[in-house]
């Protein structure tokens, strides 16, 4: 009783000052929130124009997690006890103002809703994904190319001011004077300039064609599924190529090129003629992208119902694209129906893959399948490169 323990001898730190349990448990909560956000990323990403968006982060509003207890359902009318100047019949608060009654449920912090805004870096998400799904890091396919670029090569005594190499020039000065303590005075002879030379470059550009079936049978949800998938494909490929372009092609019985923002808004009517889309892709390839200089990828999303008469033509055009492309992939988005690729277009790709081309397909029925599809294509792709 003599030692009240109230004061620590000066200089001693009490145990509870060493760490905060509250902060520790809060961090754990935060981690759980991030985990649950990660699990739902395909949905979250489907909501915004993110494929070419320059912003590098996704902002996700989340609620704090609730630790659930048994509770009674909220009654229409709740009784409480209060204190103050009030007579029976008084209306203390009009309707509309959204507020719970004064009384809190025991042991809980009802309402009082606090929202967190999580900001996730897309790069982090992709890193996480690749690690989590153990996806191979693709090697950029280096093809022969007639593209040239300036590269640094050696030094010269003459050159443009902007290419003056200070460190090297100073070395020359020191060598000449032999006395490091003297005030340095440069002569023209000391100066060294970097030289550039034109050299052939391997192909390190890539272009990704996203082709989407927007015929009447494709629902809004189908398109969102496709978009979510396309997003992660872009992210994955972008890690490997110094420069990458995206091309968006939509088709019904005709085909058009769109910008990204338009692309996912488009909805057409009528039937599906896949060959028009493939022809459009072929056309753009021929116009703008030389397969010798550029790695070409094509990803096609459709519900798979191609019109019967079109199959021969579609097969032919697709084959011609596949010969020039690094990889062609097909996702079948059929929310609700899980037909698992037993469709016209599905067969088309199966034939292509069977004939040894770099091609793959995957059925996408739900957001949960997006990860599977991404994994499927990237593992298939890396195998295609190896062979």
């Amino acid at each position, binding site marked *: 009783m003599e030692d009240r323990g109230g004061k620590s001898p000066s200089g001693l730190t009490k145990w509870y000052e060493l760490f905060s*349990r*509250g902060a520790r448990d809060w961090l754990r909560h935060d981690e759980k929130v991030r985990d649950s956000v990660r699990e739902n990323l395909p949905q979250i990403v489907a909501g915004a124009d993110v494929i070419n968006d320059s912003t590098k982060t996704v902002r996700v509003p989340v609620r704090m997690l609730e*630790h659930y207890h048994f509770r*009674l359902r909220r009654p229409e009318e709740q009784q409480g006890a*209060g204190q*103050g100047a009030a007579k*029976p019949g008084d209306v203390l608060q009009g309707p509309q103002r*959204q507020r719970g009654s004064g009384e809190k449920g025991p042991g809980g912090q009802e309402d009082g809703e606090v929202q967190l805004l999580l900001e996730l870096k897309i790069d982090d998400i992709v890193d996480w994904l690749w690690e989590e799904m153990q996806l191979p890091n693709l090697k950029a396919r280096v093809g022969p190319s007639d593209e040239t670029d300036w590269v640094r090569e050696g030094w010269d005594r003459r050159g443009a001011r902007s290419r003056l190499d200070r460190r090297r020039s100073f070395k020359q000065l020191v060598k000449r004077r032999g006395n490091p303590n003297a005030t340095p005075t440069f002569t023209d002879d000391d100066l060294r300039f970097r030289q550039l030379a034109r050299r052939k470059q391997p192909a390190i550009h890539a272009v990704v064609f996203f082709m989407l079936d927007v015929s009447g049978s494709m629902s809004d949800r189908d398109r969102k599924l496709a978009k979510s998938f396309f997003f992660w494909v872009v992210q994955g490929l972008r890690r490997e190529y110094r420069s990458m372009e995206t091309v968006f092609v939509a088709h019904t019985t005709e085909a058009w090129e769109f910008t990204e923002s338009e692309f996912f808004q488009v909805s057409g009517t009528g039937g599906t003629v896949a060959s028009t889309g493939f022809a459009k892709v072929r056309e753009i390839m021929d116009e703008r992208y030389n397969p010798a200089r550029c790695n070409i990828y094509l990803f096609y999303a459709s519900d798979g119902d191609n019109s019967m008469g079109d199959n021969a033509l579609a097969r032919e055009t697709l084959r011609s694209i596949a010969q020039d492309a690094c990889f062609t992939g097909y996702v079948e988005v059929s929310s609700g129906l899980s037909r698992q690729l037993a469709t016209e277009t599905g067969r088309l790709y199966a034939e292509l893959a069977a004939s040894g081309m770099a091609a793959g397909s995957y059925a996408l029925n739900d957001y949960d399948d997006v990860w599977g599809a991404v994994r499927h294509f990237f593992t298939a792709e890396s195998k295609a490169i190896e062979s």
Partner: protein
Amino acid sequence: MSEDWQSYVRRIEELAARSGLDFHPVDFEAVPDSFMMEIAVYGLPVRMPHWSFGVRYIYQLIQRHMGNSRLFEVVFPGNPGHAYLADSNGLAENVLVTAHVLGHADFSKNNLLFQRCQGQVSEHIVEHAANHARQIQQAIEQYGRERVEIVLDAALALEQHIDVDQTLRRQRYPEYLPDPKPLVDDDFRKRFAALDPSAAFNFTEVKKKAPVPPHPERDLLWFIATYAPDMESWERDIFLAVREESFYFYPVFATQIMNEGWASYWHARLLREADFIPQQAYVDAIKCHSDVVRPIAADQQVALSINPYHLGFSMWEKIIEKEGLETARKIMQQDDDFGFVRNYLTRELADELHMFRYSARSDGQVKVLENDLTALHETVIHHKYNFGAPSVSAQHIRVDGTLELVHDHTVDGRGLDLERSRRVLEYVHKVWRRPVILQTVDQQGSGLEIKTS
């Protein structure tokens, strides 16, 4: 921290003892605000880790930043008791708080509910809880955080579901039904035995296995820890650790109005009688007292909740004024909030305190209801029944191990929140490891069954 206050502590203790307070020694310790906040969140100075405490912690932090709450002290009953005081308290606040803490110490030593629960968990709950925390830390190291968290998710979700009328270390149900009464040695049996003496004594009945549970069991933490078909022993230990802490929390919960009122009455009275306190400190302390027991926020006309400090304080003042200290001490020993409010919140006092009942509709309209004392009593205490939780009991274990829970909606007046209940079942399912189902009622009052998928 002021040395001044230290010198007053003993004198306040002596004064309290002279005034008839009877308490175990209390260790006072001044701690930083941040630590006070943590004690309030965790309920104990050292407690097991769980993410849900992190959520409460952030809410507290927000509250504090908005200036809504300030904690002066937290007391842990025991022998000795532990009291933590915020080191930001001024002298006046500390004097007040010291007297307040002694009021609590008197209460927790003498109140029967406290005595009974303390008899179960011993007077060293603070140390026990620290032990549990260490145990769980070891489990985390051994089995991984994920697995321990799964167990804690379930156990802490059921923390209110205990039965304090049972003992802390509770035995399993008897395995067999009680023996049937021995057959009476009547004339018939005598004659029967005479027919064939060897057959007569083979007439004992086979013992019958008792059903589990023999009656609906509301001590869910114990029941699951004891009868889960496939739980590992360290998991059972975690359930029992949470249950022990709940046994400790129960009397604090069930006597809040009495206990806070008692402590507030005594800090006010001891302060009045402590002539050794400087005048200024006295005035400041009285101001602080009136803030604590204020029923209605300064800028408002009415409050839609009852301040338990104020209600308890006013009730004790009235009781002691009318019936004397002797009677008041008897009430303090024997009652909990249920009896206290029903017996001693009189019409006269309720009017004096301007207490009223109101109904709040889901659209936000709040309307004052007619005067009705009995209804007022019930409204003040209704959220305290059954530790504040719906009455859910374990009813049956099926042959395949399925656990059947049942919600007694007749007691609670309405059915359960289905979404939350489903989540709780999912927690439980992960430790019970067999299907779990729960019966409750829907909005219309017709039966409804929730299942784990």
